[in-house]
């Protein structure tokens, strides 16, 4: 088990009232899973992903990462978990324009001192080759195509060798050709590298590539299909 959500409630104050986004939501993600969460806009998909990625704190309920409860963890400990165990890919690539592709991928390794720069470099090289963007390593983000940028963002998510990658509409800003390429790449990472994926998406195609599919509505998840 990589991540487990237990009875998650999440609400936000809005116009003097509490708006409930997630309601008694529970989900278990096992190692090697690839999960797609779909749902209408505003249904709480990103909130769910943020809670899973420890970017947001549930109003109540527990998030367990590798069996460890996270509610009582301090900010630095949460950051450490995010850095080591979770990778993020967003709809927009969020590559830093002032850094080269290589440097963008390298950035997560700067968050904590312990990492061996040489091994990180070797790993980046390998990831870039895997994602077929090794030759672009010295390019700045504005010189890359949309698909290349998103692959760079995935490389950045992979660099710390996380057990889980959370993807928020990873193909939302791509054309269908690039969206398909990214989908295939993610599927390959899951199947060949054993990387656990949780993606929220509007894309039926990307969802179809995942082995589990959930639908989020009125704060609750319902499984809509899968390979099992």
């Amino acid at each position: 088990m990589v991540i487990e959500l237990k009875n998650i409630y999440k609400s936000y104050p809005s116009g003097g009232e509490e708006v409930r986004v997630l309601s008694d939501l529970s989900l278990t993600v096992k190692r090697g899973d690839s999960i797609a969460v779909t749902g209408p806009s505003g249904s709480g998909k990103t909130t769910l992903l943020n809670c899973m990625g420890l970017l947001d704190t549930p109003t109540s309920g527990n998030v367990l990462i590798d069996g460890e409860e996270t509610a009582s963890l301090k900010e630095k400990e949460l950051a450490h978990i995010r850095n080591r165990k979770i990778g993020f890919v967003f709809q927009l690539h969020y590559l830093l324009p002032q850094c080269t592709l290589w440097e963008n991928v390298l950035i997560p390794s700067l968050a904590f001192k312990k990492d061996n720069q040489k091994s990180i470099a070797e790993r980046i090289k390998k990831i870039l080759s895997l994602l077929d963007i090794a030759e672009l390593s010295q390019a700045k983000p504005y010189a890359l195509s949309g698909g290349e940028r998103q692959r760079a963002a995935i490389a950045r998510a992979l660099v710390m060798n996380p057990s889980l990658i959370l993807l928020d509409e990873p193909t939302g800003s791509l054309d269908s050709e690039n969206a398909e390429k990214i989908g295939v790449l993610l599927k390959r990472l899951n199947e060949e590298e054993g990387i656990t994926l949780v993606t929220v998406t509007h894309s039926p195609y990307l969802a179809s590539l995942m082995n589990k599919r959930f639908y989020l509505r009125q704060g609750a998840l319902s499984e809509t299909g899968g390979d099992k």
Partner: protein
Amino acid sequence: MTLLTRVFRNLVHYWKQHLLLAAGTALAVAIITGALLLGASVRSSLKEQAAAKTGKADYALLSTVNSFNSELSDKILYNEKDAKAAALLGTGAGLIKNKNGLSLPGIKVWGIDNNINLFTQKTLPVENLKDDEIFINQRVAAKAGLKPGDEILLKFGKISSSVSDVPFGQETELTGSFYRVKSILETAQLSDLSFNMNQTIPLNIFLPLKSLSANLGIPGKANHLMLSLPGNSRPEKILQPYLNMADLGIISRNADSGSLIEILSDQLFFNKSFEKILMKIDPEADRILSYFFNTLSSEGRITPYSIVTASDRFDRQFSLSGNEIILSEWTAADLEAVKGDRVTMAFYRENQTGNVTETASEFIVKEIINASLYHLDNSYMPLFPGLHEVKNCRDWKPGVDINLDLIRKKDEEYWNSYKGTPKAVISLSKAEELFSNRLGSLTAFRFSKDKWKQKDLESAIINNISPGTAGYQWLDLNKTITGAVDNSIDLGGLFLGLSFFLIAAAAILLILLYRHSLTTRMDEWGLLKATGYPNSTIKKLILTEGLLTAMAGGIIGGFSGILYNRFLLFLLSSFFTGTLYAPALTETVSPIAIITGTGCGILLSLGALLLSSSKTVKIPASILLSFKGNRELPESYTPAKRFNKARLFGILFLLSIIPSSAVLVYAFTQTQSGASIWFFLAGTFFLVTLVFLFLFLLNFLLKKKLKNDGFPKLSLFTFGIKNVLRNPGRSTAMVLILAASLFMVTSTGSYRINTPADPFSRDSGTGGFGVYCETTIPVSEKEIVTDTEFVPFRLKPGDDASCLNLQRAVNPSVIGVDWKELSERKAFHFADRGTFNRKDDVWSKLDEQTDGTIPAIADETSLSWNLGNKVGDTIEITDEKGKVVKLRFIASLSPGLLQGFIIISEKNFLSLYPSTSGYRVFLIEAEKKSLIKVKNELTELFADHGAEVLCATERLQQFNAVENTYLSFFLILGGLGVILGLGGFFILIIRQMVESEREFALLTALGFSRAKISQVVLFGNLFLFLSGLMIGTVPSFISMLPVLIGYNPDYPYLFSGFLFICLLLTGLTAIYVIIKFFLKRNFILTLKNE
């Protein structure tokens, strides 16, 4: 929708941005307008004050030699329609307060009559003033602690035509009387009356003209006349008809038993101007020079203390020439001399520096005559004071040292019988050669009664002698005030200059704000382009928005400028009343200043907008539209993409090192006083050089690929730096703004003037003298009974040309000195030696006239600020007889004790102002241990002369206080600039933080803790902040080199250190607080909002 509608909608929609831009423009406008208004206010205040001090009279008649009948004003009022006139008697005095013995120097006493009320705004009750009562002005009251009813002793010197230190001149007789303060006058009662162009309030005391003139020994006389005339009437013509012989200092009497009319001078001697006029009136007039000799000796026999004469008549009668002498029978008998014998005449004569010394000349006896047969009688004796009116020759007081023991019984009998009948005659040319002095060379003119009636002769003389020749000078007050005020120290310009950094900081801020505004609306420009708008229309839209914003800012800035001017006036007024003893300044709201300031500010704002917008509109629509997503323009659309920036700045850095180093080396070759400005310039050059170095390193770092085992390396530190260097222009602006502010503030400190480290060094501002003394009443050398060595200066008072006077010195004070005294001591340091080299004795050049131009030296502060000249320039001054004379500045002194004066040689001084008696300025040698003792001795010694005795360093501190106050203003403005600079720096950090929100969110998602993100941000901003400080420190150090090499050992290290630490701590604290505060926000929302 019209363009204007769109503009208004944009203005409303982006109101926060436009508000900031309007505020930036308003700031620039306020600074410029405020400075311009200050200049206008100061000028107008000075003009009003000067007009108020002169009672708004059109002209002032000043007499330097003679005095006139005070009824002159009544005559003018009676005869001249619509004229206003008031006669005054002005003289210097010393005030001694009874109770605590307080002595107040520099008092000006005015004798007034009721006519003064023609020039007052509020009646001055002169008629109620008793002979022993005085009015005082508020400054005297404040300085001496006087109130109505208090009694004081006033000491003044009697006014006499006699000049004390020419042969036979009489010492100035001191007189004193007790007076009771009747009341303290208001300004509207002309309490601050003065004809000098100084904004300083004089120390004025008023008493009835009648009693003052009686006390001064010239009853019923006056020496000043205030005059206002209707229309364009000139005063010169008005005066002439009212003057009489006495007013011109001329006496006429009968001679030679009434057959001749003899014309004599009040001053004993006639100068060449008079001689020319009198000989023009009658070329046959007999010129006479009679003189008092000490001894006439022949082979051991001596005839003491007698008169020798010379005249045209005797020259003709005896064909006298060269060293021939004619003796009276009495004298020949006394000396047992016969024709052909040699006799020696010893006599007193004046040397070049005005000192009287005994000298002798040898003659050969040509004839021995019976005096009475040749009409040689007592009338040939001039009106030597202390001689001609004395019955017994043992009571002689001829104004020169005489040994009464030499007077024999037969000499007394001769005096009793023949009085001053000459005992010898020599040729007129020889007499002039031997006896002439600065006042002239003839003692009388005789006119034949066959040709002249006395009345006709007097009329001819009065009509032919211009009042100027007799020492009367008209001062055109309106012209003088305009000249003094219009050319006064331009405080507005000075403040504008001092505000340069503040304006530059505002301009940089405006550029940054405009760039920010344009950047945030990139997609809008892209959209407009995409929908077919031409670049020109987009530019028009941007500029129209900018213009309206700038105009709004300009209006706010205009009003703020008025308030800023009030603030500066408040500061200056405190400085005026505290240091310069001047009235408070009043505000002048000059529309021209406001329009100019507002216009300049708006232009500055639009210039910043043009600079920021010119490239934006040229970027293709696709790039503009994708800017929000990419957050950065492709390299091809960033400025200067076509060349290697690192190389360019590297070359610029190397090139700028050359002039910077050259200026620095040149600065080392400069003298102490001139060095500061060159070191400052070198510092400025190095500031620019270091900015190029920074830009080179910045671009080099950006370009450089740091390799490690074949892989690019990135550390938290370089990552942080990369973040802040994302916008090189902004980063450079941040660094520049900090570096420049640090440089300006610390280098200003090096200009602060303090007491010299070794005030007894001849090279310092004191010239090595310990004590400075200036008296109100002249002192003759004989009166200075002290063992202390001193250098005396003759003074022709005028406008103060020191930094204590804001106005242009139109009629500057001139001092004359025996230059050898200063040359031998090697006193004072020359700031500019003009055409002379280091080995030349510049002081000795004071006597070397070329083309009739008199060499002069002045303190460099006086020369540049108060006289508006430089070494090599000439100025015109008017001598005692109204003749315009040119002075050429051959060198300037480093700021010191003699600031405020034009220095010329004593010889030249006496030729210009022969009637000046004695000395008024003294530089006294005193060792450190005896300084106070000497000061106290002199204060006591010269108390009756109204002496102000100061330790030399005290006088320097008075000047330094003024210059340091200006520097303090500079520091205040520099400080405001630093605040603005730091403010701009912080705004840029905040802007950077806002722009980086998404990056922070991403870093959070990637596992960076807040502490780690803080480190990244801190590294980048610290790099910029410390780069700014380092770039500012190096030029600061260079500009401080004069301090470090000992030119100004009293540099305010503490102050500058405090400033530096304040800047450092403020910067570090603010960066830390901004980061801490900002990173508390929840960035994840940013990602969600995307």
